[in-house]
Structure formats: C-alpha cells, structure tokens
C-alpha cells in the first residue's frame, strides 16, 4: 500500500465531491487508480477525455505510482 495525494479539477470536483484527497491504495498505475476511484464517482467520466498528472507533470495511463506522489485528474481545459 502507498499513500498518495489526489487532486480533482473542474467538473471532476463534482464527480468525486472533493478537490483534494489523501488516499491509500494498492494500485500500481494511474489507470488502476482511476478504475478504483470510479467506484466512488458520481457518474462514469470516460478516461479518454481526462488527462492525468503526477507531481505537476502530465503522464500517461500506464505511469507507475510511488509513495508520496500527488496525482491530478484533469478534465478538458476550458480557459480563454
């Protein structure tokens, strides 16, 4: 088990009813973690429309998780 911090942005804050979460998980990758989190989500946001970042860098869905990481889930941007 590792301890991570999870950040949700934009409408994903509504989906998980939080913007920040300290979380313990046995997931090995960002994708595993996402699937695990879906069980707690309101709705089923498709990961194709979501980007994931670890420690302020965009990563992909097979990126490994390490203890102490901050994982962010980002819906499509709507700046401008």
């Amino acid at each position, binding site marked *: 088990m590792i301890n991570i911090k999870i950040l949700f942005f934009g409408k994903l804050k509504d989906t998980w009813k939080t913007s920040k979460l300290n979380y313990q998980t046995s997931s090995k990758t960002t994708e595993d973690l996402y699937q695990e989190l879906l069980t707690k989500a309101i709705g089923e946001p498709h990961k194709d429309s979501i980007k994931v970042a670890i420690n302020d860098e965009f990563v992909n869905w097979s990126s490994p998780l390490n203890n102490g990481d901050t994982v962010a889930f980002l819906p499509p941007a709507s*700046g401008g």
Partner: protein
Amino acid sequence: MKLFNLSENKINDKQLKELVLDPNSGGFVCFEGWVRNNNQGKDVTKLAYEAYNKLAIKEGNVIISEAMDKFTIKKAICTHRIGLLEIGDMAVWVGVSAPHRDAAFKACRFILDEVKSRVPIYKNESWTDGESGWVEQE
C-alpha cells in the same frame, strides 16, 4: 520573467504590450478575450477561472516555446486571469510581434488555441437563474 503567466488581478495589457513590442518587427497582433454577459445561450452574472497553477504555467510556457520555434516571430506573451471575474473583465491576453504579418497572426492564433485546449484552466460560470456550473470548451 515567464512568457506565460496566470494573474489573480486585472490583466495589465498595456504593460504586456510594452514587453512584446520590438523595433525590428513591423507587425503586432494581439487577442483579448473578455467575460461576456452571455454564453451558450445563458445569461452570465460572473465567472471564476480555476487552474492547476504549477502545471498550467509550465504548459503555457511550453506552448510559447513551440510558437517561437514554429513561426518567425520576435516576442510572444500570454497571460490568463484566474479567480473571480466580472462581466467585461479581460480573461486572456495574447500578444505577438513579428517582422511579417502572416507569422504574427498565425502565432497569436496558435498560442490562443493551444492554451485553450492544453492548459489546465477551468471555467465556472454563475447564471442569472442562480445556478452555476463548470463550462465545457465551446
């Protein structure tokens, strides 16, 4: 100074423009995006932009670098406002100077489009019906 920035205060476009002007460049193109009183058919009372600040600044500066590589331009700057905005406030400013107009127009458009699609900034609108919500890209 970073070329892409987030600002919690009103965007000082005059100051930004001074930074972009270049004596060897005959062309300057800028884009300004303002908060409209309506969007996608709803009457807007105010809006908030929230960003993943660190990643947004990093990605915004990558976009400016890409524009400098891709187009023959001299200088390019973009600032995006975050926090609570009122109707008529400037939400985003992009300015580009270049020796020739074609590169200036294309680079300005490129930066704006890429910022809108790639920089993690999220718009939350409040409407006259009292509701509010996260707004998807148009």
